[in-house]
């Protein structure tokens, strides 16, 4: 049975709250294994995608707490295991939701939220593309790397140019949507 996208989103939101109510490492470990099992093909990529954003925060926090435990002669391993597992399970749930839930369809009942999401997502792609184009253009024109001062001034100029282009682009999209009746709700 395949769940609808709004139902998947609701299930995800319920699951993240439920996970924060679990305070034992063993159920969290079982949950982690179950998610990996149920999530199907690409599970290792999913785990890596989930772990990447939280890895450094967890490493810094855990090493600091380990050091504190060692200095004060306290047992901290159980606490660290619980916290690390919980953070990883929540990150994995989010990565899984992002892979298997289509937010456009999940937000079908909220057209304004969906419209805003579409415009913002479009602008994000534009900014990322402009940033990449700028880096490539700079590399292809310079035989030596630019100085920090040149990078600052260059980035400021291209950033403001990108802002103008982004606003112009978004206005065109909105006008096109309005002329087709997409903003009539």
């Amino acid at each position, binding site marked *: 049975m395949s769940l609808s996208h709004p139902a998947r989103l609701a299930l995800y939101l319920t699951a993240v709250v439920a996970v924060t109510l679990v305070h034992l490492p063993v159920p969290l470990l079982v949950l982690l294994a179950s998610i990996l099992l149920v999530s199907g093909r690409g599970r290792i990529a999913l785990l890596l995608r989930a772990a990447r954003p939280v890895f450094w925060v967890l490493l810094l*926090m855990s090493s600091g707490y380990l050091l504190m435990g060692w200095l004060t002669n306290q047992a901290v391993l159980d606490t660290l295991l*619980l916290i690390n597992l919980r953070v990883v399970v929540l990150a994995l749930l989010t990565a899984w939701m*992002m892979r298997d839930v289509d937010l456009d369809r999940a937000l079908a009942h909220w057209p304004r939220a969906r419209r805003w999401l579409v415009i913002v997502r479009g602008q994000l792609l534009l900014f990322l593309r402009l940033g990449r184009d700028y880096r490539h253009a700079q590399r292809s024109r310079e035989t030596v790397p630019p100085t920090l001062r040149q990078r600052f001034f260059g980035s400021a100029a291209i950033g403001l140019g990108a802002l103008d282009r982004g606003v112009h682009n*978004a206005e065109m999209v909105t006008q096109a949507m309005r002329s087709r009746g997409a903003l009539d709700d």
Partner: protein
Amino acid sequence: MHIPDGLISPQTYLPALALAAPLWWWAGREFAGRVGDEALPRLAVFTALAFVLSGLMLPLPGGTSGHAIGVGMLALIFGPWVAFLSHTLVLLLQALVMGAGGITALPVNALAMGFLGAWTAYLLFRLLSPLQAEFAVFVAVLLSILVSALIVALVLGLQPMIARAPDGSPRFFPFGWSVTVPAILLPHLFIAMGEAALTLLIWRHARRRRWLQAPVAGEA
């Protein structure tokens, strides 16, 4: 300075959600009243810009990360209510697209950065702009980031006091205020100066283009 999911307790995020929900509702009303069709594309672009600015992250020992926020810029251009709503969307996208921050941490992050950050920037700007508008932008953004960082540090440092196992060990974030306040505030002092300078550059550009929805005193 996002707090990831799993580091703050339900004792913290549920009351934060109860506080944030009516504020989001009210911000939605303000948004519908203030942002016309012609300003919506600009808002979308600036929301995307705030997303890009806050996407460059540096993990900090205090259990969070350091990065520009962009909410001061949003507040000075569109006003605090719109900035709060817009920054909530940034936080939501970051949680879902990049795994930075989180769903349970969203109300706390939104209140600390989106609400308090936006209002601090806006009110300080209103207070100082009669002196000199550009100075006001710089100081307002700088202090708004420090206020947000302080709130995040206080919320994280509160966790070992309010969410403990029967044996006294912490169930969520394990460090108290003596660690979180300096570990989060000090790096944000430098981040705040950089972001204040960047916001000033963008604000000047927005003023030249007549994009300011929250005008400077004497220019309304």
